[in-house]
């Protein structure tokens, strides 16, 4: 549908996903550049995001919290590494404590978003994420899915053993 390609490299710990939209790069940039629009897609419907700070300049911070069905909140942040509106946004994404401060002991991931014009009109949005280590990938993505992961791993082992 929207997603046109996915490339995952389990050795380099990177994932690149592209999607195409029939809008201009300026319009697509607003999804990132306007905090109210960012809030509408960053979190899933069950965990909508509320953006607090939003400074898209190199070294600037974006902070947000996501609120779950039980009222539980999880906080996160972006630290902006590079920005070239409306083409490129590179950021570090991590978890924050209840006060919204980055948790130094928690690993972070690097996200690189690019907008390229399509020859026939519209844009390609490319999102590339890099995880610094398998341990970081496990902590960032594995949180809350440990049981599911164990089951999946068990199934893979069963297939390999058959």
């Amino acid at each position, binding site marked *: 549908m929207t997603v046109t390609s996915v490339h995952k490299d389990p050795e380099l710990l990177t994932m690149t996903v592209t999607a195409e939209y029939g809008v201009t790069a300026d319009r697509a940039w607003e*999804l990132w550049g306007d905090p109210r629009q960012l809030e509408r897609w960053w979190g899933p419907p069950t965990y909508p995001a509320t953006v607090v700070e939003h400074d898209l300049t190199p070294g600037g911070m974006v902070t947000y919290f996501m609120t779950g069905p039980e009222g539980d909140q999880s906080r996160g942040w972006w630290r902006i590494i590079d920005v070239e509106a409306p083409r490129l946004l590179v950021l570090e994404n991590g978890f924050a404590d209840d006060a919204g401060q980055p948790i130094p002991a928690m690993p972070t991931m690097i996200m690189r978003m690019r907008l390229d014009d399509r020859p026939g009109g519209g844009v390609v949005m490319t999102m590339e994420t890099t995880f610094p280590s398998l341990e970081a990938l496990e902590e960032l993505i594995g949180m809350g899915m440990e049981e599911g992961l164990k089951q999946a791993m068990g199934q893979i082992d069963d297939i390999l053993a058959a």
Partner: protein
Amino acid sequence: MRLGLFKYNQMVVDQLSDAEVDRLFHALADATRRDIVGRVLNDEQSITDLARHYPMSMTAVQKHVAVLEGAGLVTKHRHGREQRVRGVVQAIRTAQVLLDAYEQVWRDRFDRIGDLLAEPTEEGTT
């Protein structure tokens, strides 16, 4: 399971330098180290667990693990207060499953972006 490991190594052997091949063969030339690789292929183990199987000190086991790690056969990671060891094939499979989960996160986000962009704007443009 060992066969699986060798198949994997054959796949990457073209990308290995002579020095890396030397390290690989040196690492597998020792019976204890081969045994460790076999034990951690499917299940990660703590250094303490591994040390129970061999009549040697924990430090000696740690040295063997370090040689295997240097050859790219196992990886070490911290789990609470424990150091755990696992085979590289297992590590790659774990990464695959986690990246699959992460792929779904972005598929969902891109779908929501698509819905958002399809909404008519106040100015009537898209």
